[in-house]
């Protein structure tokens, strides 16, 4: 499954909107088993923040672990946020430039 984050907006900054986005998206995830790859594509995201990321990316990682692939993460706010999320969770996420 491929998740294009820009479909949730290009300024992804608050905990509340991250939570809302994940609540909607979680319905689609019900049919995606843990063994399947989930690709999160950051193309066209302008601003990303830990609050939003913690509500969306963290629960995705908790379910899919190494099957979660992060793509097109070159934006500096995306890079900095993912670095912090990895530090907080003491994890390393699969990143496919």
């Amino acid at each position: 499954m491929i998740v294009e984050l820009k479909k949730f907006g290009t300024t992804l900054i608050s905990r509340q909107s991250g939570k809302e986005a994940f609540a909607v998206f979680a319905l689609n995830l019900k049919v995606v088993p843990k063994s399947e790859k989930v690709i999160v594509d950051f193309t066209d995201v302008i601003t990303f923040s830990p609050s939003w990321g913690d509500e969306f990316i963290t629960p995705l990682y908790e379910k899919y672990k190494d099957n979660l692939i992060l793509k097109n993460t070159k934006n500096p706010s995306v890079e900095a946020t993912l670095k912090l999320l990895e530090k907080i969770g003491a994890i390393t996420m699969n990143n496919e430039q």
Partner: protein
Amino acid sequence: MKIELISIGRAAKILGVSIGTLRRWDDNQKLPAIRKSGKRFYRLSTIKKHLESEFVENSDLVELAWEWVSSEKGKEPFSLFYCSNSAVFKTKLVKMQNKLGSISSLRPIFPLITSIAGEIGNNSFDHNLGKWADIPGIFFGYDEVKKLVVLADRGQGVLETLKRVRKKLSSDEEALEVAFTEIVSGRSPEARGNGLKFVREVVAINKLFLEFQTGKAKLEMKEGKDALNIQSSETSIQGCFTVIKF
């Protein structure tokens, strides 16, 4: 809703300019009038807004925010800077993001400036919802020429907020240090984004300067250094006050 119209004479008096000036401003569309039977009228709200924007243009943004956050009695900030809820803040933040993004020298860094401003502003809303001391919401302003962003809130401050998870904290200085350095991974009793740690990491490795005050504790961070330099300020404030320079 009834719209209050005032004569050109009264508008001139409120603004402290001559009628001739107002006629000229109408002709060149600087301040358009409403024509009725050949005479010029103005909405009172338009005149007030103009007065406010003239005052703001001639004021120092950092001083305006500081006066607002440090005054004993709370009042709503100028509408230009007031975000009464997080939706208004998001709208203004996106506007800032687009403005800064259009400046070529800021292209490599504007997503980071927007992101840390977003974390600080949203922290104010997330931690103070239903607990504002007097004025709900935040002061948020930026100046792309002076290259700075200012955020302030009259909420509970970092010490009160952190005490919910760190009961032993006793001073603003200690709370500020914890907020900027310790990873709080527990999500109880409220979800935490570790936003200020993010701010610290971003400022430490980019061409940014940060000033942050809560209560009477104040910190300053400069590019290339992750030292927090926490000191006591002479003036104690209600909530939080931030200046980001880029």
